[in-house]
């Protein structure tokens, strides 16, 4: 991206950007495929027809059309940080066009499918791709202005009026976010044999959502919202929680999507736990999924399942607490070598512990894990006289089966987030970050590093154990096979992809890594290959992840990261630092802390 800056003379910047926008418009109008796809017409009309469903927001044509219009507006209207905004639209349109083109080529058997064949012509995708490149080039020739900094005094209002205005803005922003999440989740529908187009539609929509968010970031709006929500913390948390609980009332409120969302929630909670160990304390844990497994097996044995050896039937909250506690104890045991071992050697020790857990669970140690036959028949959670696998009626709406698990998971994830956020800003959290940055210096500063490191393992494992207890009830079976090494790698990939040490990062990473396989069932075989390659590419090109931590010198976002992204992080850090200072009730000591 940076290499494209200054490639064109500045005089050509605006014409190129405008041309790119026009090409998007033309591309959206042109036919995209020269044939009817084998399994019926490609959704959103790959053939000569135009919109069948003009209000279908996830259609790639509609998305491209919008980007074309937006790009033209941004080119000619006085837009702040014009280059950033246009660049985001360019990349978004490029991704939409390229993904759709690749899919049509794959399905249509060759490049003829997107050019001309049998007397039909279809240059839509190529025009879209060229439009994207032209737009990016045009944006690259513009001066790269700073992201505008919007005042947190909304509309210049003070006092209660200002507060209400800020609340209104946040409400709108979070509602829009809920809508975007619901659209993204359902974009393309359920993958697999039932609907083979799910993958490309979903990926193209991700391109759209990414482009849109990039443009909003360029306009300074996402940063503004972030600072506003920082200022009105309690209000934001409540609204965000309500938004998450409102998801079943949107289009995503079907049994299938609730199940997917609940599964994502389990892994998100686990990923946040892992993020404490890896992201905050900088201790690479390659056997983390074992704690999810320990929680799962303990809960299975306390669930009253006939096949379990212990077979106690405890109420779920108690069983969940015991599972979390047992997992936490094992976490402290696994963490104890940190007293003597560091860095990559520690990573190998955790891997060894993970493998020991896997092998012993496989061999049904003490008849506790069921071995190869697993522990089947675990009853659903039952609280307040309701079994969690039933549908419920709430506010006059019949909600699908599985929605109770979703609600429970949302609450657990919220609780885990609260634990993470409070720990991060606490004395122990600062100790962890200090250890991550330089363990010897931290020790010299009087931090009891050994105790802090074991505590990181303990807390992380406890959270994973809690998630495991829900996981096993939701699944109904506890099998050692759910806890293999590759699951640890996947969780680690989620944390790294999202961004180490940040909450949105862990949630975003877990969502992406566990939604994508649902959408791309057709390519399920390639899932692990893509994970492996993704790990390599993230480490190479964006080691700080999608949502980077504001403390720049995180263990993975070293000095080797591209200059561009470091600038961005620094910029964000400066802005957030200002926001910190803006806070009236801020104690001076804390401000100094975050501003380092």
């Amino acid at each position, binding site marked *: 991206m940076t290499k494209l800056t200054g490639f064109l003379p500045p005089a050509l910047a605006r014409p190129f950007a405008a041309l790119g926008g026009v090409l998007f418009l033309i591309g959206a109008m042109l036919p995209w495929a020269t044939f009817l796809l084998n399994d019926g017409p490609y959704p959103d009309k790959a053939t000569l027809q135009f919109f069948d469903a003009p209000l279908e927001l996830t259609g790639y044509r509609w998305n491209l059309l919008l980007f074309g219009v937006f790009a033209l507006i941004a080119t000619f209207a006085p837009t702040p940080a014009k280059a950033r905004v246009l660049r985001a639209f360019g990349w978004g349109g490029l991704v939409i066009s390229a993904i759709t083109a690749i899919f049509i080529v794959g399905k249509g058997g060759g490049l003829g499918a997107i050019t001309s064949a049998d007397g039909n012509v279809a240059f839509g995708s190529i025009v879209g791709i060229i439009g994207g490149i032209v737009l990016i080039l045009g944006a690259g020739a513009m001066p790269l202005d700073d992201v505008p900094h919007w005042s947190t005094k909304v509309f210049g209002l003070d006092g209660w009026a200002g507060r209400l205005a800020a609340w209104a803005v946040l409400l709108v922003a979070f509602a829009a976010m809920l809508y975007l999440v619901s659209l993204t989740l359902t974009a393309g529908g359920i993958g697999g044999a039932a609907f083979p187009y799910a993958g490309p539609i979903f990926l193209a929509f991700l391109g759209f959502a990414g482009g849109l968010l990039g443009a909003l970031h360029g306009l300074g709006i996402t940063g503004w919202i972030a600072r506003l929500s920082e200022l009105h913390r309690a209000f934001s948390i409540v609204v965000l929680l309500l938004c998450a609980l409102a998801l079943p009332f949107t289009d995503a409120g079907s049994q299938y999507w609730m199940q997917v969302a609940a599964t994502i929630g389990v892994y998100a909670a686990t990923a946040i736990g892992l993020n404490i160990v890896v992201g905050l304390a900088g201790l690479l844990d390659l056997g983390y999924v074992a704690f999810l497994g320990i929680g799962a097996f303990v809960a299975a044995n306390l669930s009253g399942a006939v096949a379990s050896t212990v077979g106690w039937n405890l109420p779920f909250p108690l069983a969940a607490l015991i599972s979390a506690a047992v997992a936490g104890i094992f976490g402290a045991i696994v963490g104890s070598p940190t007293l003597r071992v560091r860095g990559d050697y520690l990573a190998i020790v955790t891997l060894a512990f993970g*493998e020991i857990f896997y092998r012993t669970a496989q061999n049904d140690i003490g008849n506790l894990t069921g071995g190869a036959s697993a522990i089947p028949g675990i009853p659903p959670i039952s609280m307040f006289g309701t079994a969690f696998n039933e549908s419920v009626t709430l506010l006059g709406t019949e909600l699908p089966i599985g929605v109770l698990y979703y609600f429970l998971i949302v609450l657990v994830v919220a609780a885990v987030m609260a634990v993470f956020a409070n720990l991060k800003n606490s004395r122990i959290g600062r100790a962890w970050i200090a250890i991550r940055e330089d363990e010897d210096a931290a020790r010299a500063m009087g931090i009891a590093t050994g105790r802090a490191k074991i505590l990181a393992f303990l807390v992380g494992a406890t959270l994973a154990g809690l998630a495991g207890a829900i996981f096993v009830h939701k699944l109904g079976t506890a099998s050692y096979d759910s806890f293999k090494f590759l699951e640890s790698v996947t969780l680690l990939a989620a944390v790294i992809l999202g961004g180490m040490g940040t909450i949105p990062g862990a949630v975003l990473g877990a969502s992406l890594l566990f939604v994508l396989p649902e959408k791309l069932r057709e390519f399920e075989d390639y899932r692990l290959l893509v994970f492996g390659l993704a790990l390599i590419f993230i480490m190479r090109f964006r080691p700080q992840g999608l949502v980077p931590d504001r403390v720049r010198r995180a263990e993975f976002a070293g*000095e080797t990261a591209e200059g561009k992204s470091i600038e961005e992080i620094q910029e964000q850090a400066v802005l957030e630092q200002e926001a910190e200072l803006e806070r009236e009730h801020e104690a001076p000591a804390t401000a100094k802390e975050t501003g380092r």
Partner: protein
Amino acid sequence: MGTLLQQIANGIVLGATIGLIALGYTMVYGIIQLINFAHGEVFMVGAFGGLAIYRWVLPESWQEQWYIALPLMLLGGVLVAVVIAVLMERFAYRPLRNAPRLAPLITALGVSVALQEAIRLWFPDADAAQPFPRVFIDKQIDLGPIEISASGLLLIVVSIVLSILLQAYVSQSRMGRAMRATSQDRDTARLMGVNPDRVIVLTFVLGAALAGVAGVLYGSYITNVDNSIGFQNGIFAFTAAVLGGIGSLRGAVIGAFIIGLIKTLGGQYLPGGTQYDYVWIFVVLILVLVFRPQGLFGDVERVRA
């Protein structure tokens, strides 16, 4: 008594395999302090390279003649392993050479997963275990109370000979001296006219060649291969390298024989039997890392942990 001797023999064969892999681990760690997690997969890819030669290159009349088939398969295995290792050094590790230490380790994990999956997806039929040609296996050699297959014996001989040759190369040759210099202090070595990039590539090449040889010989010893042999044996080899003292060639080979014996004897005599033989190796790994991270022959100063 017969069982004990037989298990010792099995353990030595396993140790010979692990040793060849462990040498690559220990050399790479010695030079760039990287736990090349994907080294086990280089071994696995080598085995599949040998298999590919046998299946698609050798004419049928040569397949039965081990003195033609085996050298060609070894050549193929080594070639594939070396190419993969050089590519991964160039495109995955080299760009991260000055990155924080955990970054290349995660990259190595990624390479490992990607290679396993690539073989499973694209090597024909490799989604299940593949029978490895019995070019050398059919002869069982009777040594009194124990019986050992000819390919097992070959594995032991080749492993020992190659280890000695490698030791000689590193301690005697000009490039070997450059390797030792780079491992001690890369910047000073550069000042003395050593090209560290070349030395590092050479290290990867040597390690991969040994792993490739091990892959083909191990394949013909156990007579079937799948895409997971690299991960398991890679962990064993890493344990061996740590046990022997990472960075020490002699230590890696001796550590490998100890690990081989722990696995076979532990599976025979310790509670839990063969189902738990992996567990004992991981226990040894943890104990060594925690209580003696410099290993049996390691240099205390070299160990950061």
